[in-house]
């Protein structure tokens, strides 16, 4: 019996790995994920026949509740809300591991050896802090909690001491597994620590944080696998942990933050904004442009690159953008989209939003792919992106965003920026791009402006 179950797990593991591998290309991805979900089914059905199971009441109850709850957050949630939804499921996964850890401790604490106790304690600790931390992330992304960083004097000291106390308790409980109270205090502190960890981080930094919690969640799962001697959980936990880790490194690079800075919860964020740099170019005013003139530009263009940012999604302008882009395309203008890694609120978010608006994925280009093409572009249309287009990141050493990789939109022949006002982006830095000679500002709501452009363009060409 046991061997059949193990066989199920081996098959499932292979299917999971193939499933993740299939995500290397959009063409194979769906099929691969179907395979992975089939693997999951095999693993679950195999487990249900496990002889350790004597009563199915709670299992069935849990499966039914879980399935019912999963439907609304999967089938009907809008794509702009995916980041908070993913953060919520990190919270759920971590909570599950944490609860099982508590249950196992509750049941076996009298007979646990030091090593096992250590594993259980790590699992519970990681699970608890990932749970509350991810809830905070979801709250901040959803706007229930204030999105700006909340800081107070001595915050780092409080957090670091709390962490040290938790580690001390972890060691203590491992040596004295029967100390009930210590275990439960550790549990409560871990919940608290998750909250504290995310408090000082602003909504704009969430792409990094969400990836870190992905990684923590994976590690929690792996530790749970260690505890239950369940190899498939170790494997998936390691894959998940690696995935979160790689994504957080990529996000860090894209925001020019160090990995230590991030691993310790991005404590350093606040210091940067104090050094708010003023704009460095001469005191020129940005040049506004009218719709008629903008349309003239587009009519003469051969290649257009679009640089979208989160502001575009926030104002729901991506559908209008795609309509305008379709018009341009229908008139033989080449259209490409330049996607900065942190253009959305989680890794790859912008691609999903554009795909939702029916932009073919073959038109979407990563920063590294598209940057050499900007000098050849007739027009770059910047929609809702700000800091990621600021040339100060390349040139102005004193700027807080100096060194951040950016889209080189300023190298294009003409840049048209759709923007409501000249307000600075998340970093609080003014954007030098707006004051360049080859930049024109089309003020107004992005969605309105795009609809007007699309309408005007059609009329001009009589298409």
């Amino acid at each position: 019996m046991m061997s059949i179950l193990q066989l199920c797990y081996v098959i499932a593991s292979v299917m999971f790995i193939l499933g993740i591998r299939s995500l290397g290309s959009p063409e194979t991805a769906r099929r691969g994920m179907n395979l992975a979900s089939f693997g999951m089914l095999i693993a679950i059905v195999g487990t249900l026949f496990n002889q350790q199971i004597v009563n199915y009441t709670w299992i069935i109850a849990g499966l039914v509740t879980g399935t019912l709850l999963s439907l609304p957050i999967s089938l009907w949630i809008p794509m702009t809300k995916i980041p908070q939804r993913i953060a919520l499921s990190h919270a759920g996964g971590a909570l599950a591991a944490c609860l099982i850890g508590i249950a196992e401790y509750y049941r076996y604490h009298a007979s646990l050896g030091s090593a096992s106790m250590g594993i259980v304690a790590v699992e519970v600790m990681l699970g608890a802090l990932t749970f509350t931390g991810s809830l905070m992330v979801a709250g901040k992304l959803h706007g229930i909690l204030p999105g700006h960083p909340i800081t107070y004097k001595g915050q780092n000291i409080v957090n670091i001491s709390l962490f040290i106390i938790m580690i001390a308790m972890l060691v203590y409980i491992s040596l004295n597994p029967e100390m009930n109270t210590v275990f439960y205090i550790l549990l409560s502190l871990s919940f608290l620590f998750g909250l504290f960890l995310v408090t000082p981080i602003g909504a704009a930094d969430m792409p990094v944080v969400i990836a870190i919690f992905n990684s923590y969640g994976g590690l929690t799962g792996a530790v749970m696998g260690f505890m239950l001697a369940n190899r498939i959980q170790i494997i998936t936990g390691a894959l998940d942990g690696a995935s979160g880790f790689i994504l957080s490194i990529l996000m860090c690079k894209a925001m020019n933050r160090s990995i230590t800075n991030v691993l310790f919860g991005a404590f350093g964020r606040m210091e940067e904004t104090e050094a708010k740099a003023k704009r460095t170019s001469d005191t020129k005013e940005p040049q506004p442009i009218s719709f008629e003139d903008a349309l003239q530009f587009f009519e003469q263009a051969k290649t257009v690159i679009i640089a979208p940012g989160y502001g575009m999604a926030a104002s729901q302008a991506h559908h209008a953008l795609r309509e305008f882009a379709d018009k341009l395309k229908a008139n033989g203008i080449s259209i490409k989209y330049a996607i900065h890694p942190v253009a959305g609120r989680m890794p790859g978010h912008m691609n999903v939003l554009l795909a939702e608006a029916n932009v073919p994925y073959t038109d979407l280009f990563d920063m590294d792919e598209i940057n050499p093409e900007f000098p050849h572009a007739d027009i770059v249309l910047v929609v809702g992106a700000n800091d990621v287009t600021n040339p100060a990141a390349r040139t102005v050493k004193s700027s807080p965003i100096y060194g951040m990789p950016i889209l080189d939109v300023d190298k294009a022949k003409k840049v048209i920026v759709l923007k409501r006002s000249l307000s600075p982006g998340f970093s609080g830095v003014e954007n030098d791009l707006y004051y360049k000679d080859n930049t024109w500002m089309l003020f107004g709501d992005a969605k309105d402006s795009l609809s007007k452009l699309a309408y005007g363009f059609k009329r001009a060409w009589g298409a």
Partner: protein
Amino acid sequence: MPTGLGIYDIYIFILAGFLGFQLISRIPALLHTPLMAATNAISGIALVGSIVVAGENYDIVTNLLAYLAVTCSTINVVGGFLITDRILKMFKKEKKQDKK
């Protein structure tokens, strides 16, 4: 039942971690969101551990804890695969020019 840390488990963890690095660094930024949704779904495998604990029927405390754990991981498994598929479905190549 909690067990000690087996050396094979550590091997498995390390090797799977390396494999994860190799696999995931090949995934284009284009698909990073579905990747996160997918790893989420897959990490819902915690469900199998939760199921065993829930099924052992030790006492009401463990049953309740395990029930909640089964619920949470089921949400991740079912919801995770559904939403991954929903996202992936949107990634299309150049569409036929059906409308202008």
